[in-house]
């Protein structure tokens, strides 16, 4: 069976992290979200993957290449213009001959999630569903004894708790339905409309309930919880790097090759540190922290429950907590992130809620010394921030703060 992964969208609600890479390439447990999906597929023996790419496709292609290092074969197809899920799927048409599985590239799943669907599929279309208390923002499935009658997008009333995960098994008939799918009010061709059309034609559409992992990280800060969840589940810590005498490693900690953890450092797992990093001396890393490759963490830092992407440099005496930092950041000494709880964060005029958050920092910023970020504040990309600044509001792209 082939798999089609829809990985063309940006993931607007994860800005500023997605200004430079799509959501599928954001790191959790030191792997892009998409890699967790590919691993799950490969474990289920699904190795022929058609990847629908669009926004920042080079990031995906540079990382996965032809797939061989991940045990799969990847064929890339490009969706030009973001015209909805049906339009995205249509791009894969030339490569599909029989039954195939479709997944979103930005949900965290495990192999069991896929095998649940594979083992229980039936009819012309099978839809994987999960039960959730809070259905806000999702599509729900209304069914009669597992036969799907209707999929309601973002229901106003409490009609069902069965959330549509966006993981489907289709046969090639779906492409006929896509051809006659009408454009929706918001100007997109939705795969939901294509499915509804097949239901209306009398095709058998079934749902398969799963209790396995399926996590939809909506906002960037949700990734902190996903990261913590995945780190807890990491089975075998691997220490390939060099831990100097006098450094203490406790619990489940992985350290990549060529990384050096200098004396006096104290690392408590679960945590992952990537390759080619210089940590310390005297750095404290506390649980649920992921640090990418080629990072330099200067002396006397404390980092807690945070995701730090590749090529980041953090100056001495910094305190980083509940924070997401993008790639290629250069941060001076005494950098402090304040944490707030039950924050209300405004993005493009819409209010979002964050349970607990320090800061969110995009790619490629140059932050000088003694900078403090107030709770829930965001720094976009390419900013230049002078010493001594208090970041009390969000900083837009390429800003110069002197």
């Amino acid at each position: 069976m082939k798999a089609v992964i829809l990985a063309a969208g940006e993931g607007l609600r994860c800005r500023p992290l997605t200004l430079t890479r799509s959501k599928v390439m954001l790191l959790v447990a030191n792997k892009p979200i998409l890699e967790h999906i590919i691993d799950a597929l490969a474990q289920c023996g699904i190795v022929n993957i058609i990847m629908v790419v669009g926004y920042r496709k080079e990031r995906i292609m540079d990382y996965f290449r032809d797939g061989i290092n991940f045990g799969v074969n990847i064929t890339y197809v490009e969706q030009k213009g973001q015209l909805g899920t049906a339009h995205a799927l249509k791009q894969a048409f030339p490569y599909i001959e029989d039954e195939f599985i479709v997944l979103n590239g930005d949900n965290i799943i495990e192999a069991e999630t896929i095998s649940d669907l594979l083992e229980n599929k039936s009819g012309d279309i099978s839809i994987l569903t999960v039960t959730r208390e809070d259905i806000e923002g999702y599509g729900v499935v209304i069914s009669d004894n597992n036969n799907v009658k209707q999929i309601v997008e973002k229901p106003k009333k409490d009609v069902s708790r069965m959330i549509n995960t966006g993981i489907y098994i289709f046969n090639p008939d779906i492409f006929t339905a896509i051809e006659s799918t009408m454009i929706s009010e918001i100007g997109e061709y939705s795969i939901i409309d294509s499915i509804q059309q097949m239901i209306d034609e009398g095709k058998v559409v079934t749902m398969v309930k799963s209790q396995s992992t399926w996590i939809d990280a909506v906002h960037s800060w949700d990734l902190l919880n996903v990261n913590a969840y995945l780190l807890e589940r990491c089975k075998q810590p691997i220490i390939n790097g060099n831990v100097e005498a006098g450094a203490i490693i406790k619990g489940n900690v992985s350290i990549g090759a060529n990384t050096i953890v200098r004396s006096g450092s104290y690392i408590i797992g679960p945590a992952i540190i990537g390759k080619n990093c210089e940590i310390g001396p005297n750095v404290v890393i506390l649980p649920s922290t992921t640090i990418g490759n080629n990072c330099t963490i200067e002396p006397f830092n404390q980092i807690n429950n945070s995701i730090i992407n590749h090529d980041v440099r953090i100056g001495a005496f910094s305190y980083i907590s509940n924070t997401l930092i993008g790639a290629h950041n250069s941060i001076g000494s005494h950098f402090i992130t304040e944490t707030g709880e039950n924050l209300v964060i405004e993005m493009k005029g819409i209010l979002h809620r964050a349970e607990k958050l320090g800061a969110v920092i995009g790619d490629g910023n140059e932050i000088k010394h003694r900078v403090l970020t107030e709770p829930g504040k965001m720094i976009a990309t390419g900013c230049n921030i002078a010493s001594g600044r208090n970041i009390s509001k969000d900083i837009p792209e390429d800003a110069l703060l002197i």
Partner: protein
Amino acid sequence: MCGIVGYIGNGDAIRILFESLKRLEYRGYDSAGLAVIDDEGNIGIFKKEGEISRLESVVPAIISRIGIGHTRWATHGKPTQQNAHPHSSGHISVVHNGIIENYQELKEELISEGYEFLSDTDTEVLAHLISKYYSNNLAAAVRQALGHVRGSYGIAILCDEIPDELVAARKDSPLIIGLGEQENFIASDIPAILKYTNRIIYVENEEIISVKQAGIQVTDLEGNPRIKEEHIIEWDMEAAEKAGYPHFMLKEIHEQTSSIHETMVGRLHELEGNVNFEELEMTQEQIQQLQRIEIIACGTSYNAGLLGKYLFEKLAGIHTDVDSGSEFRYSNPVLAPSTLVIGITQSGETADTLAALREAASYGCKTLAVTNVVGSSVSREASTTIYTRAGPEIGVAATKSFISQLVILYLLVIYFARSRSFMNANRARVLLSEMRKIPGHIDHILENKEKIHECASLFVDSQDYFFIGRNINYPIAMEGALKLKEISYIHAEGYAAGELKHGPLALISNDVPVVAIAPQGSTYDKILSNIKEVKARDASVIGIANQDDDEILKYIDIVLPIPRTDELLSPLLTTVVVQLLAYYTALERKCSIDKPRNLAKSVTVE
């Protein structure tokens, strides 16, 4: 990264193994080997350093129906015949891709049991271990052996007592089985066998496969049988190798962010402000006593060498000359043993550079090779070799290998400058920490490459281009012109900006675009006045400048920005801009980008 193949069937095993190995060559090679059993039941094991065709020339014409083969692409360590696979012990021969983590303890154990080791490889441990457990069931012996092994492996095993079975296994290294009609294949990568079959079985971690002519049998490490699903591969091989990119060149330009990391791995000691070059084998004293450096290279590598000249002289105070290989040899060179001769060649096979190094060695000079291909001819020719570790480069126009050469030169200069007390530790620390930021800066340029595309489109019909720069930017002007010539077939000249008025200014007119490499630095004011000179002749000026440089906007038509970095390191960024400019110009002119007319990737003729 290595390639593994195996074959059993009615076909000519040697020919099929070679064909398959060659399909893996795009992933690189530095030594190769194979083991086959002939029709009379005799085993033949053949190994050779260098590319696969070299091995081919030493394998005799024997008829064989079963065998295993291996091609190696080492990024570290020496590719000698001794270390080449297969490795053997008793009846057993093994090819392996991966790393055995506990090989040292296993080795000691085996030595105490009387096993003799001929190579430095971890693979030989596997051969002995399997041999130790082998009585008559090969799969069982492999299973028992792997029970003791920690690490990653993709392996294929041949036993000279069993001419009708191969055994394979994997853990965390790629391995697949190809199914044919009365024949079966083992490979580390699908392209290897796609010519023969598209029916593939993916081997999972800790599975052992017995491969016979009639069929295969898969078991887990406990010996329980596993049912495997067959996959039909429909795959455009070339497209797969390009991983979604329209051309290898663009893919390789993008790979520069990661290949620079590879080049730097283990060589930077930021905290100490020093560089590590274990492979250099030069004492501090020898470095201090150097009177002169002579760099020999051709083509793109020459431009890298030219930057090396500026850097060695500026930072390490060593008089440095650069010559192209083809000129050096016929110029009656004046050389003394106090001169270090550095040969730079991506492929390690450039005939002119090789001959020049040989010539230099005859004067008693120490010779140093900088190359991308481990075990290439130049590494045997030179007294010392430094590898750029850029990974295999397919596009004829060198991109990532050039930038890796530059990185090596920077590191070498810092190393020499520190050893000669020309640079203090603090300055070195600043430079090294700035170097670690370079991949991020390149990433930023790639993010904004559309602007370069637009710029290229504007001048796509130009007949001539000028690239100008001063000092460390001059080599990049040369490289920009070379890239454009190579792939877009537009006549281009790289010029030291101050030299324009001594002649070429006569050629400047309003239909000649001039690319000025002008990041801020010691020669910035000078190049601004050169820009004014060409502007006065109505040329369109494209400036490659710092992104926060507002001054230059007054004088030029288009600015292609680069992130701010240490002045000395800006060539690592301006390079990427000129590469993309050449790429998009060629793209707009619909040229054959990866295989430009009349050119070859590795020039092995003089």
